[in-house]
């Protein structure tokens, strides 16, 4: 069985993001970029399924600027077999990505798509759901456990207030949550081998999809700065301040 894993290049989770001075977005120039952490979990899960003998081939897909090829290399170093880069300078939004993924799924015929539940740059939490809908496939989102048996996937989901287990008929889309696994470090030999694995580069037009954004960003701004705390001398003073200053009681 084939697994397709979409991976997104985002600002590294360690970087303190800064809003661009003109308010059009966040500063990405000269900033360290890495694979979206949820996508690393997705790659790891796919690799574990391959190591268990469940999967036979893992295809890593990334969309965006040419440097997304390096994000694919990271997936290849972790154990994916080949990559597809959909190269474009367009500002990609979930719907366009889902549409392009659908065309790739039709072409590659994977049994499972494993992807991050959201990307840490825009936190959209939408692409997996959209892709499942476009394909008419079952979906298991926010997965913290995945088991494949025959043509069925059992997915434990992290939901408000607890865990929910769903049984999905394959093919299906699974989106990963943080507790699903702990991604491995790529080994040095695999990093070297990843350089020799194939990456196919195509354009959105090759997939017949117009990636132009449908949402318009009006303004991006820093959240208001947190005020310093205040020490109060007594309970009475605290209550008074909560009433008059914080206005919460």
């Amino acid at each position: 069985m084939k697994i397709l894993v979409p991976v997104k290049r985002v600002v590294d989770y360690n970087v303190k993001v800064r809003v661009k001075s003109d308010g059009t977005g966040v500063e990405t120039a000269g900033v360290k970029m890495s694979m979206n952490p949820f996508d690393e979990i997705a790659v790891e899960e796919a690799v574990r399924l391959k190591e268990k003998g469940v999967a036979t081939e893992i295809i890593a897909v990334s969309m965006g600027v040419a440097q997304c090829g390096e994000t694919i290399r990271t997936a290849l170093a972790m154990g994916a077999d080949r990559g597809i880069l959909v190269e474009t300078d367009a500002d990609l939004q979930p719907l366009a990505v889902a549409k392009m993924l659908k065309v790739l799924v039709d072409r590659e015929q994977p049994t499972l798509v494993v992807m991050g539940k959201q990307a840490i740059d825009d936190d959209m939490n939408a692409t997996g759901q959209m892709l499942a809908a476009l394909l008419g496939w079952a979906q298991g989102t926010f997965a913290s456990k995945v088991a494949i048996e025959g043509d069925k996937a059992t997915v434990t989901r992290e939901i408000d207030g607890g865990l929910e287990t769903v049984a999905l008929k394959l093919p299906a889309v699974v989106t990963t949550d943080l507790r699903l696994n702990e991604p491995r470090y790529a080994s040095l030999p695999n990093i070297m081998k990843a350089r020799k694995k194939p990456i196919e580069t195509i354009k959105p037009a090759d997939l017949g999809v117009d990636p132009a954004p449908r949402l318009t960003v009006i303004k991006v701004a820093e959240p208001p700065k947190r005020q310093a705390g205040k020490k109060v001398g007594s309970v009475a003073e605290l209550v008074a301040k909560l009433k008059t200053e914080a206005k919460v009681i």
Partner: protein
Amino acid sequence: MQVYKAPLRDMRFVLHELNDSAGLAALDGMQDVTPELIDSVLEEAAKIAEEVLLPLNASGDEEGCHLDNGVVRTPKGFREAYRTFREGGWTGIGCAPEYGGQGLPHSVSMMVSEMLCATNMAFSMYPGLSHGAYEALSQHGSDAQKALYLPKLTDGTWTGTMCLTEPHCGTDLGLLRTRAVPADDGSYRISGTKIFISAGEHDLSENIVHLVLARIAGAPAGVRGISLFVVPKFIPTEDGRPGPRNGVVCASLEHKMGIKANATAQLVFEDAQGWIVGEPGRGLNAMFTMMNAARLGVGIQGLGMGEIAYQSAVAYARDRIQGRSLAGAKAADRAADPIIVHPDVRRMLLTIRAYNEGCRALGGWVSRRLDEAHHANDPAEREAAEGFAALMTPIVKALFTDLGLESANTAMQVYGGHGYIRDHGMEQLVRDARIALIYEGTNGIQALDLVGRKLPAHMGRNLRTFFHPVAAFIEANEKHPMLSKMVTGLGRAFGALQLATAHIASKGMGDPEEAGAAATEYLRLFGLVALGYMWARTAKLSLEKMMSAGADAAFYQTKLQTARFYFERILPQAGGLLFQIKAGKEAMMSFPEAAF
């Protein structure tokens, strides 16, 4: 708190921009080495260093190693970390593919080593010593020895040691007494006591391969009677697995100032079975051929220490508020300004930074030349590169470790009293950095090696591999509209170095004590000029790149400002050093011994 993120941008600058890493692929066996590959290797190594090794640095120091009934336990977490490191293939980064290694160039593995040393110097020495043993065996071992030991040292299931030092002999190895008696089966029985053996006994690997210097019964006194032996802790079976226990035991562990998580063992050999490596009587030579790489490696420990010291000091200097800026309050909304506003704190931070980046550039250049020495196609090119690496090795070892310690000390000063308190981790850096000035040949011995061996070698041919490019750079750039001030400074310091060289050549010839008296200052002067050349090249490249660098322009701008600091506030020390050198030996040597 110890703060560290691998300085990947600067490493890429040194590798790709200053030293054209794209050219590495032209070397023998390096065709797959591309800048992109190097970047992915460095990024993954950074993760291991930051996420696996750094969290064990302070705890490893606190706990140390423990000896119980001949068995040594490394601190909590070290076994798991070593397994992660080994399974990731990092022990084989510089080893030959035929033994299962990755065969990456020295210039790349140097950067990886820097990260390991910065985040956990004690840990880094376990694989570090193994690699020393790997090098010695791969250059001098028999085919059978190579086939047996090299794959194990490469995959890290076995580790290695270098056993030179004995209680009565450290620098002067001619005094060593460990004896080797030939046995009927062609092996030897080794008996004697070795002290201060790094990674000499531990619980990280299934076997330990000791490389031991010993004297064959009846061999002449002095260094010519010394041979090299391989003495495994467990004697390998036919199929290469650890077999019966050999006659070597860990009698004690040293209680020491720093690198506490690295086991420094006293090893007692009693009729231990050993096999000779190379020719009888050529043991010291065998050791010396691998010493260039090992000494560069120790230099890199100094650089790693400097880097973590810098990052930790900057984080503290931004955070700690104390006093007001002399130019008027900078953080009016707070009770005081962060100490980073004060000129003296900035002096400290910039000094460390200028040393670190200068050393990284110099280390990058020397290790690149070492790659050429080993892998260039043209024999003449190999020889020239070899000569250059030999010349620069004592400088990298002594200068980098001196500066690494100075930097750790300076970073502690930035922390004030809190630096002296254990919790912040600064005093650990000072303690850990200290040893690098002593082992692998003390820094005093490095200076003697430079003036006594490296300067006169081949009638000064090695020296010219450094002097010529510097002279050419100065000539080509002294009229540069933006750089002339820096280049003039470099020219002045280079002039001082030339005068000092001439002084040593003329005085030292007739009176070796004169050379010995000048050696340490001469090495420092040489080192400062070498860093100056690196900073001048860096400044030139940064100027060129800044115009078209987009968001990266800030990186080059910062380089230019750091270069300026180096030329204005550090390099002028060259003049003082020349005075010290020219004063000669008299003040020291006429001092009556009884008056000390």
